[in-house]
């Protein structure tokens, strides 16, 4: 038993020798023992003069508790709704994948050769222009000196000039300076 418990629960005359030795430093005499006893009694009396706590404290706390409960239930609903949306989204995506997935069927159709890579350089053979091939001749604008020659200045708009050939019109050879 602690010294303070001995003082509060017992009377001086009821103390055993061991208890008196425990109390030696606090209550060596009966007067000191009674003084300590009185201190504890008066301390306890103080408990009686504590006012009652205002009921508004409880009301406020209860309101807080209720609002917290409502908030928590809302959180559960939001969480459930979010999970539902996620599950639905996953389901829809999976369904779409299934529908668009191509079924592999074995056929005798030949697989086309690998196409040329567009980045590869392409070497094309040089074009050889045959003498009888159609020639588009660009004629410089006529000068006043060559006024006797036919006017082929408007070759782009002149159908005859475009569609004519050297074979059919040998006069054109006068204008040919070089053949590849």
């Amino acid at each position, binding site marked *: 038993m*602690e*010294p*303070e418990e001995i003082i509060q629960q017992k009377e001086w005359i009821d103390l055993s020798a061991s208890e008196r030795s425990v109390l030696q*430093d*606090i*209550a060596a005499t009966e*007067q*000191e023992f*009674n*003084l*300590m006893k*009185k*201190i*504890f*009694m*008066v*301390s*306890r*009396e*103080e*408990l*009686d*003069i*504590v*006012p*009652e*706590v*205002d009921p508004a*404290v*409880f009301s*406020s*706390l*209860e309101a*807080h*508790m*209720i609002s*917290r*409960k409502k908030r*928590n239930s809302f959180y559960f609903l939001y969480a459930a709704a979010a999970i539902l949306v996620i599950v639905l989204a996953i389901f829809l995506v999976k369904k779409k994948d299934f529908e668009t997935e191509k079924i592999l069927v074995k056929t005798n159709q030949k697989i086309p050769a690998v196409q040329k890579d567009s980045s590869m350089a392409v070497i094309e053979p040089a074009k050889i222009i045959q003498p009888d091939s159609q020639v588009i001749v660009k004629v410089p604008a006529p000068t006043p000196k060559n006024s006797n020659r036919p006017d082929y200045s408007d070759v782009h708009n002149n159908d005859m000039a475009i569609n004519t050939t050297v074979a059919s019109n040998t006069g054109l050879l006068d204008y040919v300076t070089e053949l590849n």
Partner: protein
Amino acid sequence: MTLRKTTYHNTSDEELIELMAASDNSAFTELYQRHGQKIFSYFFRMLWKDKDLAEDFTQELFLKLIKNAASFEKTRIFSTWMYSIANNMCKNEYRKKEIRQNHLSMVPKQHPSSDAVNPDHKRFKTALQHFLHSLSEEKRSLYILRFHENLSVPEISQIIQVAEGTVKSRIFHLMKEIKNELKEFENLLTYP
């Protein structure tokens, strides 16, 4: 149809706090009924008998309990946990107001006493009150927990987070200090 309200008269504090964590309003009500006035009394005595302040602290403490109910360790005793929170709140308040420097000038609010007719008894009570208010926050907390709240040494040890032996030693020295301070009343014959 009658609505049945759950009653938790036989449920332990530790179980109640668990139910409270699950937003059980009845559990909270029961817990408040058990400890509301008790913790208010503690605050009232610790905070210079200021009723408004004690009520604010009571409310704040229960808000903390509601908020932290889920984190309550099952191995702990609820009342110890509650008092340790209350004790820390008081400590912070003491620090905030730097009461250590000014505590002697703080005059506690006077409340009517039934035995105020006995002048010696009144003088003795005043001297005791003055002495208790002159104590440091640490000693006053120890005194209130031990002699007002009647908490055991192991419980106080957990609340103030000090070894049991140290608590015992501190209580012993506190008792010696009180006795020496009020020695003049030793020969007072009129005991209540």
